[in-house]
């Protein structure tokens, strides 16, 4: 489906299928179209007239208002009713049900209590409080309870963890993941935080400029990014451009390969994929953790290498990043595990001669965007 607003196309030819019970995330920078897509699924927007469809549980729902779709939603700013207590907020959806689905008062009270317990808020403490008397994390849980009490088939979440501090956010990510598995509800999640998406999702749709750039499991997205955008947006990547000079036959233990003359000088090998022929330009992404940093004379046989000198050593806690300026300009970042700088420090410092090396198969050949 596509969706345009005056002056801009927010969503362009976006198409995917979400499995029942899946935790599906839409990930991308601001303005990529992920929130608009979520609102199209919810029913707050309708697709442009050129044939886009939203199908929920098998039925086309283009003409259905949000309250006619079997969805519930958690909003970015929680949208709790400020004039209602926590229990009235949660009961709101149940109270709207008319005959023949009317819910009796006693049952409403029970379900509200269960919903509060589901999100780990003690009913006796929190039921009567007003949203203004809650912390950000507590409001988020109430918003979640308000949605889940309706036992929806599909739960839509619009960047719900944005305003919460890091520690609590990590806890909530695990809780959301566990709720998804426990309840079997399909979660459709929108976020700009790639770590969040990688942690929680079964599959991720990475979006950019109103389109889906890549759709896959966290492992597929992270280890096999298809475009430079995805390689850059998820984790970190070093990029190398070059032109193919020759294509070689498979050798002992290795498949067919191509020799590439790097734009920045030097050369490296990549696995030969279909369609790679001499004369073609190619761009690869190599993640910092796929690189090794070695003394220039000690490059392991068969590995690609670029020579340069160490520009910086960055302490990141779990990892160390060594930034090497290679011949031909350009910085390459190598990730090395931190074995404790106080007991076993890295032997690298600024100005040292070094080579960055990687096995030819440890790269991603990128498509044009």
């Amino acid at each position, binding site marked *: 489906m596509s969706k345009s607003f005056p002056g801009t196309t927010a969503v362009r030819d976006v198409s995917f299928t979400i499995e029942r019970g899946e935790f599906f995330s839409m990930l991308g920078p601001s303005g990529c179209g992920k929130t608009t897509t979520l609102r199209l699924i*919810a*029913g*707050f927007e309708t697709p442009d007239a050129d044939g886009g469809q939203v199908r929920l549980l098998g039925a086309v729902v283009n003409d259905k*208002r*949000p*309250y006619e779709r079997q*969805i*519930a*939603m958690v*909003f*970015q*700013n929680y*949208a*709790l*009713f*400020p*004039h*209602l*207590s926590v229990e*009235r907020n949660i009961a*709101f*959806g149940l109270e*709207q*049900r008319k005959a023949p689905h009317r819910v009796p008062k006693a049952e409403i009270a029970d379900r509200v209590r269960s919903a509060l317990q589901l999100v780990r808020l003690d009913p006796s403490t929190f039921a009567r409080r*007003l949203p203004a008397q809650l912390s950000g994390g507590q409001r988020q849980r109430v918003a979640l309870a*308000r949605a889940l009490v*309706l036992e929806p088939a599909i739960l839509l979440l619009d960047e719900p963890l944005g305003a919460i501090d890091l520690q609590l956010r990590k806890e909530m990510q695990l809780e959301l993941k566990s709720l998804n598995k426990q309840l079997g509800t399909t979660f459709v999640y929108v976020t700009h935080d790639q770590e969040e998406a990688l942690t929680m999702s079964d599959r991720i749709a990475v979006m950019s400029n109103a389109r889906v750039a890549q759709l896959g499991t966290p492992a597929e997205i992270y280890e096999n990014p298809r475009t430079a955008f995805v390689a850059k947006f998820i984790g970190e990547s070093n990029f190398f451009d070059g032109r193919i000079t020759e294509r070689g036959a498979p050798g002992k233990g290795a498949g067919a390969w191509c020799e590439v003359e790097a734009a920045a000088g030097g050369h490296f090998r990549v696995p030969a994929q279909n369609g790679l022929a001499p004369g073609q330009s190619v761009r690869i992404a190599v993640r910092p953790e796929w690189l090794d940093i070695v003394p220039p004379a000690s490059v392991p046989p068969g590995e690609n290498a670029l020579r340069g000198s160490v520009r910086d050593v960055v302490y990141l806690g779990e990892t160390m990043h060594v930034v090497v300026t290679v011949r031909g300009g350009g910085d390459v970042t190598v990730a090395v595990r931190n074995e404790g700088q106080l007991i076993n420090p890295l032997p690298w410092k600024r100005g040292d001669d070094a080579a960055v090396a990687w096995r030819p198969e440890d790269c991603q050949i990128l498509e044009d965007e």
Partner: protein
Amino acid sequence: MGPGTLWMLAFFAIPVIVMCGYSFMPRGTYGGVDPGFTLEAYARFLHPVYLTILERTFVVALVCTVLCALTGYPVAYAIARSTKWRTLLLFLVVLPFWTSFLVRTFAMIFLMRDTGLINTWLLRLHLIQQPLTMLYTPFAVLLGLVYGYLPFMILPIYASLEKLDTSLLEAAEVLGARPTARFLRVTLPLSTPGLIAGSLLVFIPSLGSFLTSDLLGGAKGLLVGNLIQNQFSTARNWPFGSAASLILMTLVLIAVLIYLRLRLRPE
């Protein structure tokens, strides 16, 4: 002492204290007051004639407030919902303030009197045979008051509605609320502060109004405002006028306190 306190002192506290003093003093022979202490001004007020006037004033002010709320809320709602015409509409609401209230009230006379604009056209179109008596009736007084005070109701309600977070309405919609339910359970409760503010801004001044009832109500529609005005001009009974003012002020305070108490209880 900040400027605000000085202002309140000079233009509010001191005059009220002076008036309070006058209300307990005997009436002067040629107007003004004589020294002394007496309760005769207050006792005089307890006469049925004056109590009727007080009751009538309250009823008129109440009906005026309710009518303003009923007509003002939809207008405020429409302005809050419009995007293109909003500035123009707000301008139109505020525009009457740029003309004198007296002039506007006279305009109502020209509209409503037997040879006025409305009657002339109704007669010309043969919709009526005799001119309708509109002027010098309670209807005329109410119309004049509502016309005068309507912007005071519209603007606070608009301010309340304009602040309403649209994501609340979306949340209500996705939870199953149809448009009517969304209005009754979300929009209306959250615009109540504006409604209260508007009601107070209409009720209190209309209690003290005397111009409208004087020009449009004739001799029969005497309100407390007219009574008090009289005491300080032709009747020359300052203590009585002061006593009436203070009684009115006290009753208003009580009414407002009760109203606020009722409205500010959480749901």
